[in-house]
């Protein structure tokens, strides 16, 4: 194990939405659309006596990645858990509709969300569907949509479904992708079903390493903007088309997963079945060691 040093690159997990975009894209290349000065805030939060954010928790705009034009969106997981409210979601929908028309080299979605904002639940839920449909349209136009998951809030609820609609996904160890949150499962089916306070359990069930190993994500990145950038660059040229062939392959991929792992009790059982040696140690592996492991094992994930 390499000795840690005191001076390291900033953490993706800790960074703000704006800081992530600034570090991910080419230096000073980002231009925000409908920025904070436009003050397009949620009209609904005041009904609940909740404070608003000038950008409603999402930053959208254009920039370049290795000199290629991209459209990008970043959610701010610390504001209302990065949840999809009406304005927040519409900014992403608009960005995607623009992408279908303008055909940039890629669309990058920097997830950091607990799902639908429940104070605006009907608008948020409908918008999840609008976003998913818009992603499909972008992909049909031949533009890869790449999701990056490594924020505090992960990609939960509708965010998990949107992630599953992207052509490619990058995830870090800290990143979580799921539909139902640990607390929700525990509330509905008891602590025996899922102990939400057992964070090791949370991460091995929903976390980045598990998703990367089982094909729920296509690339694994260390917790830095540099690593996410490198992974995004690798993936945008290898995004699958959105067509019958891809969808049939995904059907086969997901069927195989159910068949192979449908009775697994816990993540390490699945990892063992995937040929991971010492699966009990996966959680403890450093980023480099895990990337090596991933290169030699793990499930196929081409079709999505």
């Amino acid at each position: 194990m390499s000795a840690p040093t005191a001076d390291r690159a900033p953490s993706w997990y800790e960074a703000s939405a704006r800081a992530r975009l600034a570090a991910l894209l080419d230096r000073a290349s980002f231009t925000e659309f409908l920025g904070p000065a436009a003050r397009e805030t949620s009209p609904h939060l005041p009904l609940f006596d909740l404070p608003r954010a000038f950008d409603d928790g999402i930053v959208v705009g254009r920039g370049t990645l290795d000199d290629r034009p991209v459209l990008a969106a970043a959610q701010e997981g610390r504001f209302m858990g990065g949840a999809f409210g009406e304005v927040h979601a519409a900014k992403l929908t608009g960005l995607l509709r623009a992408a279908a028309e303008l055909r940039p080299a890629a669309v990058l979605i920097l997830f950091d969300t607990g799902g639908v904002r429940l104070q605006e639940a009907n608008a948020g839920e409908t918008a999840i569907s609008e976003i998913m449909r818009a992603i499909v349209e972008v992909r049909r136009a031949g533009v890869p949509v790449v999701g990056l998951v490594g924020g505090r809030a992960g990609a939960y609820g509708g965010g998990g479904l949107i992630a599953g609609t992207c052509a490619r996904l990058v995830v870090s160890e800290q990143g979580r992708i799921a539909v139902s949150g640990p607390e929700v499962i525990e509330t509905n089916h008891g602590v025996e079903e899922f102990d939400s306070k057992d964070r090791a359990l949370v991460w091995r069930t929903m976390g980045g390493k598990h998703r990367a190993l089982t094909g729920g994500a296509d690339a694994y990145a260390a917790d830095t903007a540099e690593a996410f950038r490198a992974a995004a660059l690798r993936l945008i040229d290898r995004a699958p088309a959105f067509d019958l062939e891809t969808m049939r392959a995904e059907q086969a991929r997901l069927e195989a997963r159910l068949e192979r792992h449908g009775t697994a009790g816990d993540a390490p059982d699945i990892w063992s079945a995937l040929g991971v040696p010492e699966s009990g140690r996966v959680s403890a592996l450093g980023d480099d060691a895990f990337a090596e492991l991933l290169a030699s094992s793990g499930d196929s994930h081409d079709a999505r």
Partner: protein
Amino acid sequence: MSEGETGPEALSARRQAGAAMADGKIVAATEATALLEAVIRPGDRVCIEGDNQKQADCLARALAGCDPARVNGLHMVQSGVVLPEHLDIFEIGIADRLDYSYSGPQGARVARMMGEGSLTVGAVHTYLELFARYFVDLTPQVALVVAVSADRDGNLYTGPNTEDTPTVVEATAFKNGLVVAQVNEIVEKVPRVDIPGDRVHFVVEADKPFYVEPLFTRDPGAVTETQILMAMMALKGIYGEYGVTRLNHGIGFGTAAIELILPTYGERLGLKGKVASHWALNPHPSLIPAVESGWVSQVHCFGSEVGMEAYVGARPDIFFTGPDGSLRSNRAFCQTAGLYACDMFIGSTLQVDLQGNSSTVTTGRVAGFGGAPNMGSDPHGRRHPSPAWLKAAEEASDGTDERLMRRGRKLVVQIVETFAEGMAPTFVEELDAVRLARNAGLDLAPVMIYGDDVTHILTEEGIANLLLCRTAQEREQAIRGVAGYTEIGRGRDRAMVAQLRERGVIRRPEDLGIDVLDADRSLLAARSMKDLVHWSGGLYDPPARFRNW
């Protein structure tokens, strides 16, 4: 109390009564309540082991299960009131009097029960003070202690969490008292004898391993920029200024931030080897980067910390370890070390008044103090000099005294943010503790650290050096001058505060050459729990609730 209950005959009567439940010394967990009903007599003084860390939880449950018709009127003497059972026994009528030291999680219930009269508290002590009374006027007739394992002769292995056990057993067993130990397992041969078997009369094999609270684990991910700023001020304005090598830290995020910037900011200040090398401290995970960067020479511990076992075992050059390879902690010795051998205590509190008195007791919550009042006091029995100790005294002197007759001063630093969560001001006109004492008719307000022991108050606004204050008025304005935007702070005499600042009594970040905007999380040698694991070479194994991997 009759003499008979404290004499040797009483002990043999208790042992005989308990023998029916035992196979030799060994008692099954299912028989624990029956055992306690047999050996404990009404009115006994009983010590149940448990502090802010490990708990004799199986025996606590067994005691709470006793029939109050048989076991009643107990006087409980114990370090910590932590488990619900510790208070249940007062509600059921098994016990009626309590002398203790710490009650973190049960603080609110203690306050309520005191108010209702269902609980009579003798006093809230510091740990060392309570231990002392075990040997003078609060000697237990029965002690219920906890260890990792025992052999059939009753030899106990306490593992890294030795903590209070030797003290409690010493006070009980050598004064005709009966000692019952709960252990996780009975073994052929214990890895290390922490308590000799002839001091242990019964051993209960617990139904599950005893509980230990990871009280000293602070997630670096939750350290704020304000805490980092305060840590920078502490290092530059106090550690460096006085050359503090021997010290104790409290458990708050403020001191965790200091530990985490030693290898970064401390290094930059050139303080490595000059400060913070010898510690009376639990094995804080947040100290790992400093240990690994060569800052720390040695650490003696009150107790252990969950998940630190393998790491501590791998660093016998730093920590006190036994031949079995695990930590040997001892609360009484470490408290003594903190009192007499340390030049500085730095820790947090909930309220500070205009004289600098502090307390963690707030309305509706009697938390107790643990070791802080002992750590945070100037020991008049100290006789050995050190540069930091002498410099502090020199600052406090007006220069007219005889230098060779000058007693040194321990540095006692309160590191507090001016507002706590929910905008509760830290600085107040009157401590809630005083109000509580008045309302409850107590003889003494539960003050954690008295103002005359405090040498520095450090907030995000600056450092108030109380050693340099010459009058009560200066002292009050020095405190107001770092009290930020609290009412106390806004009530400052601006002119006088400016004067104090000129004299260096108050020092702002800029006076110390610290740019507020440099207080950044990138200064933390570890920013996450995972970073700490990396620093430890994979040896630190944090509890599940602190993980995000």
